[in-house]
Structure formats: structure tokens, C-alpha cells
């Protein structure tokens, strides 16, 4: 992305950091009045090596011991990298490139796929990985980010959302509400923010009454317009309040939100339907989450994060 957002960041980044296009090429400054003789509007190839913060969201095996990793990054969106011999026992990188780990990853550019040359863990989220429920929720979040993003589309808010979500999932007891917050804000971040305040058909402000969510309309229909789109899902007044609250708040609101089982289920249903409609496919890790919950309902409360022994 040329210029824009990064100029306001502290730390005084140089011209090079601010002026890359989507493929990582430098964009040299063009001719200006001050320097009419410098026609520097050609692009320079990017350096062979680069480094970025990244959260590993997907891993695929390749060949005998190699892997292809999918990352989500703050400034390059979703990218992929080739990790040679990652699955061998003496691999130094394996521990720093596990799924759901936040690392500083170094790459060398390749013709097709860039190769991972190094990785340093920033946060390993052990509290998530030691807990079956937290892991299943985190995998679900990672899969949604993967499904909703195209490669090399910068989306820093989504990166921050994913990182904050992993932090929340590490310590909260309120896993499901955390996921609902995540789903709403992810939709926001990728351009599918549900319209919750006015009817998506007639645009009148919604009354405090039962209204109807329409995936097709990307928002809520008033009772008069409910017949104009199909399918629709009824939303009680409380459900609408919860949706609006989650949509307009920070993560701080989640621990304070206590939903009864029925409301929580309705909230989950409507968001799941909307996500399914947008993605046109099932989210695979959603099934695993559901089967875990049915396996041990008393265990659907996650264990408290374990503190390591003090030495």
C-alpha cells in the first residue's frame, strides 16, 4: 500500500517501509517539481529477504518432511511460506512455527513460494494449547480468518483482532461469547459488517421489537419488510441488544456479559448462519467444537490457565 496509514506511526519509518506495493516491491518517488530530472517511477525489486510478525493459521504437509505454512501478518495480510524439513526431529524451527504461534518470521523470496529461513517465537499461547476447549476455539478463529482473507491483502485491524482474540482465549472463561465478539468484528474487518440499526430494505430505524436477520441483506429487516428476503431469522429484543453491544464495544465487554443458555445459542445460530451464507461452505473446525461440547457439557468450562512453577 502506498504511503497512507503508516505515516502516522511512531518510530519514523523510512521511505522504503512506507512505500511498498502489494507484492512487496519498492515504489520509488516519481518526478516532482523539485527534482524534474529524476524519473524514478520505475519499481525496484524488493530485497531478497524480509521479515514480518506473523501468526500461523494453517499448516499443510508436503513431501516427506516439508511443510507449507499459512500466516496472517499485520502488513501483508495472509501469506504462505515453505518450510523445508520442518517435520524432521532436529528441525530448529518446528517449535517456533507451530499452529497458533505468534512469531517473527524471516523469509527468502522464491519464484513461486517464499522460503522460511528463520523464526523467533513472540508468543506461544501455551494456555490455549494445553486446553482442548481453548484450542478448538482458537483453531476455529484461525480458520475463519483464513477463509475470509485473500492473499497479500493488508488488513491490520484483522491481524490485531486475531491477536487479541488469542489473548482473550488464553485467559477468559467466556469462550463462546469471545468467539461471537470475534465473529462480529471479523465481519466488520472484511467488509461484511451487519447492519443492526436500520432496516436493510426500507432503511427506517429499527423499533425495539422482534426484527429479522437476513443473510442476503447483510443485516436486519423490520417486520414490514421481512417478507422481502429469504431466509430470515427472528431476533428478540435482547438478542438485538447483545449484537449491537458486541459490535460497538471492545473486548472488555465480553467478561462482563453473562448470557443465559438460550440467548447464547440464538446468538451463535444467527452468526453461524450468516457466516455459512457468506462463505458458502462449512467451517470444518466448527464441527469439532460442537462435538467437544456434546462430549462433556460439564467440561465446556475450560480449565484455568496453568501457571508454570516458580523457580
Amino acid at each position, binding site marked *: 500500500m502506498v504511503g497512507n496509514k503508516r505515516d502516522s506511526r511512531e518510530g519514523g519509518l523510512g521511505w522504503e517501509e512506507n512505500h511498498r506495493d502489494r507484492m512487496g516491491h519498492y515504489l520509488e518517488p516519481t518526478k516532482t517539481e523539485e527534482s524534474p530530472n529524476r524519473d524514478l517511477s520505475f519499481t525496484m525489486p524488493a530485497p531478497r529477504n524480509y521479515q514480518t510478525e506473523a501468526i500461523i493459521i494453517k499448516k499443510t504437509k508436503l513431501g516427506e518432511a516439508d511443510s507449507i505454512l499459512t500466516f496472517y501478518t499485520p502488513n501483508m495480510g495472509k501469506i504462505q511460506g515453505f518450510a523445508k524439513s520442518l517435520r524432521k526431529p532436529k528441525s530448529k524451527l518446528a517449535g517456533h512455527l507451530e499452529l497458533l504461534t505468534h512469531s517473527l518470521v524471516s523469509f527468502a523470496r522464491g519464484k513461486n513460494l517464499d522460503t522460511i529461513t528463520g523464526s523467533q517465537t513472540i508468543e506461544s499461547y501455551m494456555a490455549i494449547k494445553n486446553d482442548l476447549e481453548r484450542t478448538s476455539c482458537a483453531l476455529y478463529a484461525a480458520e475463519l480468518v483464513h477463509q475470509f482473507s485473500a492473499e497479500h491483502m493488508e488488513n491490520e485491524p484483522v491481524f490485531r483482532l486475531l491477536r487479541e482474540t488469542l489473548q482473550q482465549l488464553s485467559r477468559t472463561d467466556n469462550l463462546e461469547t469471545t468467539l461471537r465478539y470475534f465473529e462480529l468484528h471479523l465481519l466488520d474487518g472484511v467488509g461484511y459488517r451487519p447492519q443492526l440499526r436500520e432496516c436493510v430494505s426500507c432503511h427506517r430505524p429499527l423499533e425495539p421489537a422482534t426484527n429479522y436477520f437476513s443473510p442476503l441483506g447483510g443485516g436486519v429487516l423490520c417486520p414490514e419488510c421481512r417478507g422481502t428476503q429469504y431466509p430470515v431469522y427472528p431476533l428478540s429484543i435482547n438478542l438485538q441488544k447483545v449484537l449491537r453491544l458486541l459490535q460497538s464495544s471492545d473486548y472488555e465487554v465480553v467478561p462482563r456479559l453473562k448470557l443465559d443458555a438460550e440467548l447464547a445459542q440464538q446468538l451463535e445460530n444467527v452468526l453461524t448462519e450468516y457466516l455459512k451464507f457468506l462463505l458458502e461452505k462449512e467451517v470444518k473446525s466448527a464441527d469439532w467444537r460442537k*462435538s467437544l461440547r456434546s462430549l462433556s457439557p460439564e467440561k465446556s468450562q475450560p480449565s484455568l490457565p496453568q501457571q508454570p512453577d516458580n523457580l
Partner: protein
Amino acid sequence: MSHQTPSDAISQLIQEFNKLPGIGPKSAQRIVFYLLRSSEEQGRQLAEAVLSLKQRISLCSSCFNVTESNPCAICGNTGRDPTLLCIVEQPQDIVALEHTGVYHGLYHVLHGAISPTEGIGTEDIRIKELLNRLHNGAVKEVVLATNTNLEGEQTAMYLGRIISPLGIRVTRLARGLPFGTELEYADDMTLTRAIEGRSEV
């Protein structure tokens, strides 16, 4: 006029070898031309060995290891300890563990690990069969030897959760620093496990 490609039998066999993992078109070509130069006997032996593999090898009905006999040599060996059951992901893991010579119990092969993002759930690996085995009460300890990646850890945690209520002791292979590594390169998770699992010298 387009270039000529080799005749049918040759390109057919090249294609077959090319399908195998780790064998690209060049390697496949090299192998096929080698076979062309070698004796008919060699070609026949190769063909027969491939056929026998598929005809004679199947899964042990008890532990799901690959075997010619049913039950397999390990399950059929009365000298092994039937109270100890080691759970692994793939048959190759048994080869590795047996190579140490220190384990004398029985095995169970899951043929995979729980991987939600790939759609592999509990129904897709041999968990039901494992539970059936445990219900007859012979096993006193289950050793979880799944891989230490996220999928293997999840599988281990899940199995621990469903097996413990049966009153069977559940243990996990020690995780920590592999041999031949340097501390400064180790990652957080490995080091945490290594510190927490430290033992007396």
C-alpha cells in the same frame, strides 16, 4: 511438428512412478530406463513384490498395524506385556519405537490424529476400536505416543479425557529437549516442558 514422446509402455510406467511421493518425472524416467536395461527377472521380481504388498499386507484386527498375519507379530507375541498399551498415529511410529528395544507392551495405531481444520474428527481415526479394546479390562496403563505437534497434543488430551474415567492410568511420552540440540535454539514450549518435567540427576 511437435516433438515425439516415447512409446506407450515406457511413458505409462514413467507416469506410474511419477505418482509416487518424492519421485518426479526425471527420477521416474531414470528408473524406467534402468529397468529397460536390466534383466526380465528383475522386472518380474519388482512387479511381483508390488502385487504381494497389496495382496498379503492388511491391518491387524487388534492393533491396526500393517501386517501379513492376523493378529500381527506383536499382538500374537505372548511374551509381551498385555497390561501396557501404547497409542501411536501411524505404523511407522511402531517401527521407530520398537527400534529402541525398551518397550514390551502392545500397541494401537490410530491412523491419524484429530485435525479439525482438515476435517479429521474422532470418527475418522481408530478411537472407537481403541475403546472396545480397553473395555475388556486387561490394560492397566495407556501410553500416549502421538506426535508433539498441535494435532497430536489435541489427540492426546482428548484420549486422556475419555480413557481416565475408565480407571486406567494414562501417561504421555516425555517431551522436552531432543538429543543433539542447543538450548538457545529451543522454543518456549519445548523449554517449558523440559523445565517442568525435570528429573533427578
